[in-house]
């Protein structure tokens, strides 16, 4: 078997790169670094507008911290199931990997369900997207995060389907690692949002 064939068969690109590292993984890390700028902009905008209510209800007036705490805990635990999925696939335990991937997607789904409930209850209490600058900034920030989580769920389900078809094996476990990096980043962003937006008092 030629050297090229070994690399292609192995599924880990790092053996063929000039840096000796996986370029796919490096690209994901660069992408995540750029995502910091995106979320930094959205968080800063909310911080600047959070008290601008135009004499109408502010998002901070209707926060349900106990409920959001449970959502945060669910997302945090999904990072554990994600890393356990990678660990299982890396060991060649494909069925366990599949189970953990599905668990991660389900926990992500629970988080998104919680966010939909939260948004709905906010609107019922008079805080909609266009109510005031504070609500616009809040819905944009948390909505963008929700879209990221949703995309992560799509990626996780794609991995799950690939695994069911027998296309996700120990040899290409790096794919799980790449999706895992994205998923953990989404969790990290929520760690930041939960503290800065929800827990730190507005005034």
């Amino acid at each position, binding site marked *: 078997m030629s050297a090229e064939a070994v690399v292609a068969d192995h599924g880990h690109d790092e053996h063929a790169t000039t840096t000796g590292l996986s370029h796919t993984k490096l690209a994901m890390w660069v992408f995540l*670094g750029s995502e910091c700028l995106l979320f930094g902009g959205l968080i800063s905008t909310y911080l600047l507008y959070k008290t601008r209510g135009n004499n109408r209800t502010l998002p901070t007036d209707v926060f349900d911290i106990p409920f959001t705490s449970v959502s945060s805990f669910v997302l945090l635990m999904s990072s554990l199931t994600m890393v356990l999925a990678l660990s299982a696939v*890396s060991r060649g335990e494909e069925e366990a990997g599949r189970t953990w991937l599905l668990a991660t997607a389900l926990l992500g789904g629970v988080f998104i369900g919680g966010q939909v409930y939260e948004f709905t209850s906010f609107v019922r209490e008079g805080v909609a997207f266009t109510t005031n600058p504070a609500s616009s900034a809040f819905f944009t920030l948390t909505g963008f995060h929700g879209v990221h989580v949703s995309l992560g769920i799509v990626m996780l389900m794609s991995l799950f389907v690939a695994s069911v078809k027998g296309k996700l094996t120990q040899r290409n476990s790096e794919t799980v690692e790449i999706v895992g990096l994205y998923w953990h980043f989404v969790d990290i962003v929520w760690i930041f949002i939960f503290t800065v937006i929800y827990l730190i008092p507005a005034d």
Partner: protein
Amino acid sequence: MSDTTVTEHSEPAADETAEHDEGHSHPSDWAYVKIAVVLAVITALEVFTYFETVLDWGVALVPSLIFMMVVKFYLVATWFMHLRFDSKLFGRMFTAGLVLAVGVYVVTLTVFEFWA
């Protein structure tokens, strides 16, 4: 947290082993569970600060919350995202974006007199 170097990605051919060994050892599942427990405890502490009737944190509230947030951020990045075990270049790429973002937006918030 010493239970590391249990899992390797695959079983490479003999001539690939040297390349493959570098930066590919990962913690055991038990180590991940322990990190998750620590994260859960910190989250519980964070939520605890919300109930001022139980304990008034006073001026220590915001610094405490930020400290706990940074610890959680660090644990997820280093353990779950494997920055602790992978090549330093990955961490540098991420840190570059993070530092740039923090710098740019601290300046932005300062310009708009957020801290006043």
